[in-house]
């Protein structure tokens, strides 16, 4: 039993890591597009964010999984579900991260940009050295929430038939007619979240040397 759950956990962790690796940077593009002075681009970004935050992730996963077949008649191999899963999670989380980045960037007072401009910092230097470090601190709590949510959201991959930890627990529970697999899976999710919370706390502590 533990072996099956452990395999499930590996997949869960993979979905988690792949989503972060894809969505953390993609969110930057989403935020930049959303803040762009070029109206059409910012509108597209708004629509993107609105749709991805306004519809269930489970439905988005299904759409990506089966969309290619129903729309274009494409026959995709059995590996497609893993790609569909990664794409769905990354697109969805990039929308959330993008909004967090944007609100963080827009919360930095104009005076910071002006002080930097008068001192002769270039726009890139201003962003990298003055704005970004302050944004990081400000968005940490919101990012922490999203990352914790992601741990649990990984279980949605079960709708694609991916045997991550939740699916594994479900199968085991049915086979052994027992609640124990669910309980163990719950415990593992919880410990996973605890570890992440600890890491987040440390990062926040490290940024607590100043307040603004």
């Amino acid at each position, binding site marked *: 039993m533990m072996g099956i759950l452990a395999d499930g956990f590996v997949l869960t962790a993979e979905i988690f890591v792949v989503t972060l690796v894809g969505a953390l940077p993609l969110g930057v593009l989403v935020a930049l597009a959303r803040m762009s002075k070029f109206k059409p681009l910012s509108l597209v970004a708004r629509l993107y964010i609105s749709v991805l935050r306004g519809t269930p992730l489970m439905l988005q996963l299904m759409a990506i999984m089966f969309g290619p077949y129903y729309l274009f008649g494409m026959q995709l191999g059995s590996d497609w579900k893993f790609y569909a899963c990664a794409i769905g999670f990354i697109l969805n989380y990039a929308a959330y991260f993008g909004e967090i980045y944007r609100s963080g960037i827009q919360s930095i*007072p104009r*005076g*910071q940009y*002006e*002080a*930097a*401009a*008068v*001192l*002769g*910092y270039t726009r890139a*230097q201003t962003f990298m*050295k*003055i704005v970004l*470090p*302050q944004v990081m*601190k400000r968005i940490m709590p919101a990012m922490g929430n999203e990352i914790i949510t992601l741990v649990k959201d990984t279980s949605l991959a079960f709708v694609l038939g991916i045997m991550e930890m939740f699916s594994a627990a479900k199968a085991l529970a049915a086979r052994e007619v027992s609640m124990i697999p669910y309980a163990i899976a719950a415990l593992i999710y919880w410990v996973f979240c605890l570890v992440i919370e600890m890491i987040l706390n440390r990062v926040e502590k490290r940024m607590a*040397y*100043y*307040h*603004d």
Partner: protein
Amino acid sequence: MAVVTLEHGKKSFGQTMVLKDISLTVNEGDVLAIIGPSGGGKSTLLRCLTLLETLDAGALSYGDIAVAREEAGRAVYGSKDVLRQAKTRFGLVFQNFNLFPHYTVLKNVIDPLVVVEKMPKAEAEARGRELLAKMGLSGKEDMVPCELSGGQQQRVAIARALAMNPSVLYFDEPTSALDPELTREVLRVIRELAAEHMTMVIVTHEMTFARDVADQIIFMDGGSVVERGVASEVIDRPQHERTKAFLTNYQHG
């Protein structure tokens, strides 16, 4: 020699003309105070002089650098390179300091030197420590701005501006965010700079200070220079009705 010259500067926001044909020259070693009621365009003037805003019309130069020249009634700005060069000629001290909160006091002062001027770090540090000492902030180098009083923060901001070795230092109501005691320590530092013949343009509501420290005073109202002259003359014997009314208000308020 003129450090900064503005000729016929005009600036509008939408339909409202905020600067109506302003000219001024500040010579090396001069201290110019700008006084006037709020909304009169004082900050906008400083923001145009420090390139945070662009003039609609007029000519602006820093010594031999022509930042903007007037062409067919419009201000035409020089290339990026010219503007970058011009930016090394002035510093600006803001009303609310605008220190970088995530940097230590020392780093606030030396980071621009290292990043913008490419000065070696050790040299920048020596310069930063010296300036902070001059501002009475020795021992505060490793603190962050939020650990300092407003008066101390403003003195860090002055050190940061001075570190870049500007030809002229602008102040936009440097003490308006401070209570009287902290105001005194900041004004004392500015007086010391004046005694060293630092070229300065100071927007202030501290009339006594303006009279003592400035050579010239400009009284601005409604986007125009209403009166200008020798500091003590303008404060003690204003010629225009609007200047008189403004100063009377201040003496009673």
